[in-house]
Each structure stands twice: as structure tokens, then as C-alpha cells.
């Protein structure tokens, strides 16, 4: 391997790592606030890419039907719960949040699909379209079992991934898509040819993770999220509703997934089921950081991206084995360095 090849691979690895970073941050965010290990996260990224591609080719994305279906289901569940609780006064609010708001972008896309749209409009529409998916899934699937053990929530999340990927096949079909590049330029940095798209991915990852950091550190919302993450009961006592912070976490995470979907769509072919592997690699990055630390997740994702890039050069056939196999030494190291903590699990 020459220095030049090493450098090219490093650039490539950093770009992949940036994608994993965006998804990994979303995963850690949701896990911290709701204790759900949100496996279907990669699927949402894939759905964004598929929606974007549909808009590009002038067809109506299958996501419209998906969002509409989820919105109706979530509204039914919410309204039934409210009627049972006798809280009829909260019905209009529920209708607004669970039916009207999610359906707005869906309706907009439904109307304009087929028209010639400019790139920014397409991206904005795709993002708006997928944004409600995670919060709606939260309401339908996770809220009824919010107090269950982490393991049960994880099992549900895995099952949810299969439901989503099955629906993905129904709505998008088996063929993969690849969108037009967002930017079509090539730079030369210190003798290295760098694709503008790669640069965009890295910049976007840095900007959005920076924004997330600012939100967490300096806004009331971020403080509420952090409070819920540290102690749900305590948060409730000071007037933070865990359900609300959960929804916000899902919305933020949805946005991150959507952005990574938009960024990745022109770089590779996205299939209805591509999200799983991408999501799992992001997981590996997050696990390296113990599922808790945001800077750690950044380093972990970068490591996964680089590892993937270099192993694709040395032995491309065993690339996945290497990426997922790295977990074994990582976990060994964590298990040996772990302090004697009292990890009492809850009795079911």
C-alpha cells in the first residue's frame, strides 16, 4: 500500500464514518432518553433515500402511504387512550399532533409528485416526509410498553425493523436506487482527488453533530432531554414529561437519519433493506463508546468507517466479518476494564 492509497482510503473511511456518526448519534440520543435501542433507525435513512429517488424520477414515493397509515393508526390509539381516560379536552391537540402535522408533508408530496422540482425542494420534501415516522412508531409501538425492560424494548425494536423492511419492499419494490449527486465537483487537496460529495458528507456530519451539541448544552430543551436521560422519575418530578422528551428525541433522531439518507443516496445504491447493515455498523460505533457518550460515538463511528475502508482494500470479501468481529475485542476490553458496578436489572 502506498501513502497515496492509504490517504484515499482514509478519506473514504472518514466519509463512511461520518454517515455512521449521524446515525450513531441518533441511536445514542434515543437510547439515552427512552432506553429503546432503535434498530429500525437505518431503515428510516433508507426510506429517505428511496423517497428522494422517487421524487427525482417523478413518481409518488411509497413513504406517503406509510406515513398516512402510521398517522391514522397512531391517532386511533391516542384518541382511544384519551377517551378511556376521559380527557376529551385533549382530543383536538392529539388530532393536530398525530394526524394533521404528519399528514401535511405527506399531502404536499402527494400533490407535487410528478412535477419537476428543484433539488433543494426535493430534499426538503423527503426530509419532511420521513420526519414523523419515528415519533409515530414511538406512539404506536413503544409508548404502550415504555416501562418494560431494555431487553424487551430491544426485541420489539428488532421486530419493528422487520415490519418496516417488509413494508419497504411493498412500497418501494426490490430494486435499488441511487440519486443524482448533490454537488458535482472534484477538488484536489494536497495532491489527493477528493469528491465534493465526500466533503459535503463530512461537513454535514460535523455541522449537525455540532448543532446537536449546542442544543444539548445551551437550550432548555436539551437540558430536559438530558434530565430525562439521567433519571426518568426525577425528570417527571420537576415537570418534564418523559413521553414528550421521548417524542422530541425521536424527532431529532428522525432528522439525523433523514439527513444521512439524503447524503448517502448519491454515493451508493440504496435498497429497501439497506438500512439494517448501515444501522448495525453505526451500532458498532456506538457500542465501542458504551452507548452513552456522544464524543465516544464519534470516535467509534470514525473507527468503523476507517476499518471498513482499509479492510475493503486488504480483503474485501471479509470486510463485514472484520467490522462486526471488531466487537469481540472491544467488548472484551470493556468487560475487563469495567468497574464492579451494581447493574441490578429490573424484575419482570
Amino acid at each position: 500500500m502506498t501513502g497515496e492509497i492509504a490517504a484515499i482510503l482514509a478519506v473514504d473511511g472518514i466519509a463512511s464514518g461520518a454517515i455512521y456518526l449521524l446515525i450513531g448519534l441518533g441511536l445514542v440520543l434515543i437510547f439515552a432518553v427512552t432506553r429503546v435501542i432503535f434498530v429500525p433507525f437505518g431503515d428510516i435513512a433508507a426510506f429517505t433515500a428511496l423517497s428522494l429517488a422517487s421524487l427525482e424520477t417523478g413518481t409518488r414515493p411509497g413513504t406517503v402511504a406509510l406515513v398516512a397509515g402510521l398517522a391514522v393508526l397512531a391517532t386511533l390509539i391516542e384518541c382511544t387512550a384519551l377517551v378511556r381516560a376521559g380527557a376529551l379536552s385533549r382530543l383536538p391537540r392529539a388530532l393536530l399532533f398525530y394526524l394533521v402535522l404528519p399528514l401535511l408533508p405527506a399531502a404536499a408530496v402527494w400533490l407535487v409528485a410528478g412535477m419537476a422540482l428543484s433539488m433543494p425542494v426535493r430534499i426538503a420534501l423527503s426530509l419532511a416526509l420521513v420526519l414523523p415516522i419515528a415519533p409515530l412508531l414511538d406512539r404506536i409501538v413503544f409508548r404502550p410498553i415504555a416501562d418494560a425492560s431494555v431487553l424487551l424494548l430491544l426485541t420489539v425494536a428488532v421486530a419493528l425493523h422487520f415490519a418496516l423492511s417488509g413494508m419497504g419492499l411493498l412500497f418501494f419494490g426490490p430494486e435499488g436506487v441511487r440519486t443524482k449527486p448533490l454537488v458535482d465537483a472534484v477538488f484536489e487537496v494536497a495532491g489527493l482527488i477528493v469528491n465534493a460529495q465526500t466533503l459535503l458528507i463530512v461537513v454535514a456530519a460535523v455541522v449537525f453533530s455540532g448543532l446537536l451539541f449546542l442544543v444539548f448544552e445551551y437550550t432548555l430543551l436539551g437540558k430536559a432531554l438530558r434530565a430525562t436521560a439521567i433519571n426518568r422519575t426525577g425528570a417527571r418530578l420537576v415537570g418534564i414529561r418523559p413521553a414528550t422528551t421521548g417524542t422530541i428525541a425521536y424527532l431529532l433522531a428522525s432528522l439525523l437519519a433523514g439527513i444521512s439518507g439524503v447524503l448517502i443516496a448519491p454515493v451508493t445504491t440504496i435498497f429497501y433493506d439497506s438500512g439494517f447493515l448501515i444501522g448495525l455498523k453505526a451500532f458498532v460505533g456506538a457500542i465501542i463508546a458504551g452507548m452513552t457518550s456522544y464524543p465516544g460515538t464519534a470516535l467509534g463511528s470514525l473507527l468503523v468507517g476507517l476499518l471498513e475502508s482499509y479492510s475493503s482494500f486488504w480483503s474485501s470479501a471479509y470486510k463485514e466479518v472484520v467490522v462486526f468481529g471488531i466487537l469481540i475485542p472491544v467488548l472484551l476490553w470493556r468487560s475487563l476494564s469495567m468497574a464492579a458496578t451494581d447493574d441490578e436489572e429490573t424484575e419482570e
Partner: protein
Amino acid sequence: MTAAQLRLAGLGAIVLLAFFPAILSPFSITLLNFIGIYALAVLGLVLLTGIGGMLSFGQAAFVGIAAYATAWVTVKQGYSPWLGLALALVLTAAIAAILGGVTLRLGGHFLSLSTIAWGLAIYFLFGNLPMLGQFNGISDIPPISIAGFSLAASQRIYYLIWIILIVALVLAANLLGSRQGRAIRALRGGRIMVESLGIDPFRIKLVTFVLAALLSALSGWLYAHMSRFVSPAPFDVNVGILYLLMAMVGGMGHLSGAVLGATIVTLLRNSIQDYLPKIAFSASGQVEVVVFAVLFILLLQRARGGLAPFALRYLPRVQPTPPKLVGALDHRRQPDRGTPILAVSEATRRFGGLVAVNSVSFEVEAGEILGLIGPNGAGKTTMFNLITGALPLDQGRIAFLGRDITHLPQRLIARAGIARTFQHVKLRPHMTLLDTVLLGTYGRTSSGFLGGALLLDRAEEHRAEAEAMRQLQRVGLADRAFDLAGNLPLGNQRLLEIARALAADPALLVLDEPAAGLRTAEKAELTRLLQALRAEGLTILLVEHDMDFVMGLVDRTVVMDFGSKLCEGAPDAVRADPRVQEAYLGGVV
């Protein structure tokens, strides 16, 4: 229904199974073969996840390792399938031991996530190794033959599959009823209680993990020689999740759930395939995945116990027979009254900047009841945790029966003869009273996993049962021996914890706020019990802040306040001490 009748019914069912190939259509036998093979893998998952509490998505990977091992031995090396079985079992157990060793010490979700990851890694490994035929797999696997009699036809391998399944079920049921099996059942719900009984949870988890992998190995071996072809896809993570679905549908907490779940899911898939195309013909395959996933989620939301509990409700219940009080486990000779048995010197524990226990020293003498008292936040419970090893000391030294136990892990301290109860009762609600107390005898008995599964432990088991019954009698719960621990009122649960602790035959019994939440009559009963125990020569250390309860009972008290020892002495002297009055009520007692 008696146990004999139940055995007869079971035998009848087995005879019926034996006649199935004669009366059922060939495809029903094919389905039953798949059901049997799935049920074996799911049985492992029920042991691991349902009973042991370790969630694994990687069960299919172990099935795959075994299937590939036997395929490689028979096709690429040309040896007999039986040698393939040997390699399959050894290889699977070795890999499970390594993976388990790495992940089982970590928190629950790390294990689960890593099972997804290495499940995928193994899938790609199968697909890329040239010696395993890469993604095309290995075909032309020979059928199993027994003494020259080939089991190629599905009606023949059917018998092998179901014999192995039934044997596995019986062995697993035996195991769960034995010493080590009770330890497996106690795993769910945290390790503190398990360790306090002298059980090494890591070892139990590891063995359970390997056992589950071995059951998968049997499943994989049968699969390879039944379908005569292996390729990576049937061992993908998706299939691992299908196994989990089967276990969930059947009922995670019951061995029979494995067979029930495998049957229902397999038959359901089969009929979905028949009927779904009539509703949504062009997209049946896709809809199947969605239907199953949604079903799975609904099940997890609404009926986590699965179907086995429902089914069992309709089956006639077997009346358990109380164990005979014959035989006993060896008892320790209690140390002579008045000799010091526990010596705490300058124990210190800090949490960050807070000094919870600050250089506290005291001694406990054999045959006395010592009360460790103090107001809320005095550091009593921390002191308690330091003695029992639940927390490590920062400074100081603790000796028990002349032996330094300062840095011993919790379970070795328990083995040394300190038995404890918990302020917040730690019981397994789904275990019977008898099983709960039998858990206490873990440190005094020795039978292993194999002995338990093969029923070689019966003599010891009978002695342990007699011992457990005696302890239940002692606390007055003998007539409810077969009730579930979770159904007892709090007062009785505390007594049950004491019985469990007594079953360990301790030299020192440490009780963490035993009177908390008890009614007056219950407190009186507890007092009588503890006095009786003292009369028998047992030493008791009591952490309590109910002054009335303590003062009427203890021989001496040690008073703590703000992490330091305030004073010690006879109850009356302590009560009169102005420092104590100050600490408790600001001087008004």
C-alpha cells in the same frame, strides 16, 4: 392427577408420536421434522433467554456452525455423520464458551447487540470461506445412518429428530429441577441476591450459554443431514429472530413453550402461504414478513408470557407431594459462645466526595444478637454492604472467623458462612417457597449440571429438600411450601428470606431492616424467631432503625451517625446516651 398418571399421559403422547408416520401425510411429517429441529434450537433459547434472562439473537449462528461443521466433515473429508456430530458439538461449545466469556460479564443489552453483530459476522464468514463452499453452500451431504440403516427418508429421520427432542426436553426439565437449574432460574432479576447465596452467576450464565449452544448444535446437525444441503441464508440473523419469535409465542418461561412455539409458527407460516395469496396474491411474500413482525410486536405488547401459560391452565395440575423429612445436610459446628467471629476495623467507604462509612470498627461475638442502629443516612446499609461484600472497602479490614475477607467477592464471603437478607426483599416471584429455600442450600451441596440432568443427584437432593422443609417449618411457612414466593404478603416474604439464609447454615446471619413494613404481630413473631435462633447458638447482626424492635431483642448495639460510630454497648446504656438521643430525635426520647 398424580405424577404417575402424568407420566402415563406423557407416554401415551410419545406412542402417538411414534405412529404419526403411519397415519399422517408425508408433508405433515416434513413439517413435523422442521418443527422438531426448530424446537431444539428454541429450547436452547428458552433456557437462555426465558429462564436465564440473557437475550440472544445469535442462536441461528450456532445452528449454522454445527450444520457447517458436520457438512465439512462428511462432504469435504468423507467421514461419518456421527463424527460430524462430535465436531459440531465440540466446535459450537468452544465458540460459545469464548463468546460467552467475552460478553456475559457485560450488561444485558451488550450481550444482545453483540449477538446480532457476530450473528452477521458468522453469516459472512460462511459465505466467504472457500472450504465451506462460499455463498453456494455445501450440497450432497450424506444422510445419517444407524448401523447401516439409512435415515434419508423424512419418515425415518423423523424418529431421530423427535427422540433427540424428547430426550433434550426431559434432561432440561431434570436440570431445571436440580441444584444448578435453580441457580439458572434465579439469574433473572439481578446478580446481588444470587451472589449472596454463594452462587457464581458468571459461571452459571456461561454454562447456560454453552448448553443453549449445544442444543442448537443438535438442531444444526439434524438440519444439515435432513435437508442434505447447507448455505449461509438459513443461519442469518433473521432466522435467529424467528427463533426468538417462536420462543415468545410458545412462552419464554416454559420448556414446553419451545415445542408449542415452533409448532404454531411453522404451521402458521405454512397456512399463511396457502391463504395469503388468495387475499393479496401478488405480494404474498412481502406481506408474510410484515404480518409476522406485527404479530410479534403485538405479542410482546399484550401477552409477554406466550401461549404456554394458557395451555398449561387447561392441563390437569399435578399435586406435588411434600418432601419427606428424612436425612439432613451436614451442619457446621457453631463457634463457642462469646468468641469474636466478625471483626471490622477502621472500615471506610467513600462515594465521590461523600464519606458514607468513616473508619468504623466493631466486633461481633458468637451467640449474640448485635444491632447496628442509627438514623437515616447514618451509613448502616453501606456498612452492611461492606461486610457482605456487595461493595468494596476503600480502607480498613474485615475478618470473619479469623480469616481476612476484606477483598473477597460476595459469593465467597457467603460461602465462608455469612448469610444475609435484603431491606427490599429479593425473591424470585415465580419460584415456589420450597425452591426459594433450596436455593439457600447451594453452598452446602455439590451436584453439577450433568448430575442434575441425569438425575444422579437424587440422594443429595432429598437431603436438601428435607433441610429446606425444616427451615420452612422453623419460620412457620411449611404448609405453603408449593405456593409461589410472589404471592406471599411482605411479612411472610421476609420470613422466607430468613429461611433461605438459614438453609445456607451460616455462622453469622445479617439482617437488613427485617422489621421494615411489618405489622406489630408480625414483628413479635419475628422477634420470637430470632430469639429462638440465638438460643440455638446462631450469631445475628441486625441493621435496623426501628428502636423498639431492636431494644427488646439485641444483646448489644452499635450506633452510627453521619458515617461514624457514635457509641456501642448494651441497649439500655445506649438508649440513655445523650449523643444517641441527640442523633435520633434531637434529644427527646
